[in-house]
C-alpha cells in the first residue's frame, strides 16, 4: 500500500477542513443572516464546484495561481516558491473545491437557529461576535460537524482537481486517488485494490461516525 500517498491525502484533507471551517463559518453566517438582495449570486458561486467538472475548476485555479497571475507573483515574491504542482497549490484548489460541502450544511444549520434566541442575546447586551460563539455555534454544532466531515471525506477522494493543479509528484502532490490511478495504469491491480479498499473503509468509517455523532448530539440538544 502507498502509505506516503495516504499520509499526504490525510494531511491535505485535515488542512483543507481546518481552513474551510475558518473561511466557511463567516461566509455561512453572512449567507444565513444577511438581508442583502444580491446574496443569491454568492450562493450560486459557492455551489459552482458541485456542478463544474473538476477539470474546469482545476484549469482556472491553475491560471489563477500560476507565476504570471497576480496571486502567483505575490506568492513567489513572499516565499520564493511556486503554487502550481506544490502542496500549497493543492490546498488552495481543495479549499475551493470543497467549499460548498462546508458552507451549505453550516449555513443551513445557522439559519435553523431560532432568531429569537439570537435577538434575546443581543438585548441582554451580548455582542454579535459573542452571541455567535455562545448561542449560534453550539446550537448549529451538528451542522458544523457535518460540514467538516463532508469536506474531509470529499478531499480524501479528490482526483480531477489534484491532477490538474498538482500533477503526480510523490510525497508532494500524489494523493491516494492519484496513486490508485497510477497503479492501475501500471497494471499493478493488487496494489490498486488494496489502496482502494482502504479508501472505501476510511470513507465509510468517517461517514458512519458522523451519523452516529449527529444522533447523539441531537439527543443532547433537542431544538424544541
Amino acid at each position, binding site marked *: 500500500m502507498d502509505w506516503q500517498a495516504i499520509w499526504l491525502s490525510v494531511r491535505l484533507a485535515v488542512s483543507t477542513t481546518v481552513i474551510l471551517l475558518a473561511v466557511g463559518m463567516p461566509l455561512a453566517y453572512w449567507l444565513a443572516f444577511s438581508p442583502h438582495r444580491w446574496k443569491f449570486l454568492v450562493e450560486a458561486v459557492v455551489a459552482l464546484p458541485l456542478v463544474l467538472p473538476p477539470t474546469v475548476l482545476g484549469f482556472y485555479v491553475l491560471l489563477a495561481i500560476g507565476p504570471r497571475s497576480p496571486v502567483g507573483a505575490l506568492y513567489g515574491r513572499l516565499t520564493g516558491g511556486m503554487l502550481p504542482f506544490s502542496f500549497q497549490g493543492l490546498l488552495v484548489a481543495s479549499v475551493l473545491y470543497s467549499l460548498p460541502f462546508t458552507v451549505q450544511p453550516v449555513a443551513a444549520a445557522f439559519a435553523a437557529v431560532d432568531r*429569537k434566541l439570537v*435577538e434575546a442575546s*443581543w438585548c441582554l447586551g451580548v455582542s454579535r461576535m459573542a452571541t455567535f460563539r455562545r448561542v449560534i455555534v453550539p446550537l448549529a454544532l451538528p451542522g458544523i460537524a457535518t460540514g467538516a466531515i463532508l469536506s474531509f471525506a470529499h478531499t480524501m477522494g479528490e482526483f480531477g482537481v489534484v491532477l490538474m493543479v498538482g500533477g503526480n509528484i510523490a510525497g508532494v502532490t500524489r494523493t491516494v486517488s492519484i496513486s490508485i490511478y497510477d497503479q492501475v495504469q501500471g497494471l499493478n491491480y493488487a496494489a490498486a485494490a488494496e489502496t482502494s479498499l482502504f479508501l472505501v473503509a476510511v470513507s465509510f468509517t468517517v461517514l458512519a461516525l458522523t451519523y452516529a455523532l449527529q444522533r447523539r448530539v441531537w439527543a443532547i440538544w433537542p431544538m424544541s
Partner: protein
Amino acid sequence: MASGFELDAELRLPLDESPVTVLFGPSGSGKTTLLRLLAGLDRPDDGAIRFRDGTWYDGGRGICLPPQQRRAVFLFQDCALFPHLTVAANVEYAARRETARRLMGVFGLAELADRFPRELSGGQQQRVAVARALAAEPALLLLDEPLSSLDAAARARIRQDLRRMLLSGGVPSIVVTHDRMEAVALGDWMAVMVGGRIRQAGPVQDVFRHPADAQVAESVGVENVLPAQIVSHHSGLLTVEVGTAQLQCVDSGETGPVVACIRAEDVALTRDSPQDSSVRNRLPGRVLSVIPEGPLARVEMDCGVPLVAVITAQSVDELQLKPGDDVCAVVKTTAVHLTAAPYFSRQRT
C-alpha cells in the same frame, strides 16, 4: 417600513412614577412592532426614541444605537430560553455570578438550577426568563404578551407573580398585551394602540373608566358602546337617547353625536321596574341569551339597542333568567360614559 405597515406612535411615558406600563391594543395594532423598535431589533423609518437623558434613535441625526447599547431587555412570548444551557447558565448568561445567584434565590429557581429549559413548566420558564433579564441589569424591560403561552389557569396565577417580579427588579417595564385582565393586573400606566397609533395614554383605571373614543372603548373591552343623541342638559346632567330609551349621565362637555360606553359589569338586572331606588336609568328589554362564564354569566339583551350585562351566576339562578324573558336593565348614572362618536371626532376639534 418595508412590510408596508404604518406605525405612527407619539408617546411619552412617565417611567419613573409608574413602574409598569401596559401597551394595550387588539392584534395587529402594532404593539409588538413598537416594542421591537424600542429594543433596537427593528429600525424605524424616521422619528426619535429617547430614554431618560440618552437618544436611542434619531432619524434626522442618523443615530441608531444597537440593542446591546440600549440595555432594553426584550422578553419574548415563548421566553426564548437558550435550550443548550441549564437554568443557572441561562440566568448567568449576561450577568455577574452573584447577581444571578441572588435573583435565582429570590425567584425560587435554586432547586431548578441544573435543569434544562425543556424540563420546565411554562410558569417556571417565565420565571427564568424574567430572572435572566433582570440579572443583566437592564435599563428597561420590554415584555411581549408575557402570559400568552400559558394555559388559562396558570395565567391567572402567574399574573400576580409577574407583577411582583417586575416590581422587585426596580426596573421600569413596558408590557404588551391584548388581555384586559392582564392590563389591569400588571399595569400602572396604560397606552392604548389601535391601527398603529397611540390613541390614549394614562393611568390604567382612568383609561378603562374614560376611554377617549369609541375605538378605544371597544378595544379596552367596554362591552356596551351605544350610539346616542344628546336630548337635554340640566344641572350638570345630560340626558341622551339610546335607541328608544333615555339615559342620564354626568355632563362631560360633549356635544353632537356621541356614544355611550357602559361596562357590562356595571349593568344590573331586575324583574320589575324599581320605582324608588336611586337608579335613574332603566331600560326595559328582552333576554336574548345567557352564557355562563365560570362564576359569572353574560346576559345579552335587546333593549331597543343591544345591551350586554355580566352578572353573577347566582343572580341568574335567583332571577331564573332565560332567553325570551322580559327584564329591566338598570345602570347607575355614573357608569355611563359619553365619548365622541368616532367618525365625527375630527370635525369637532
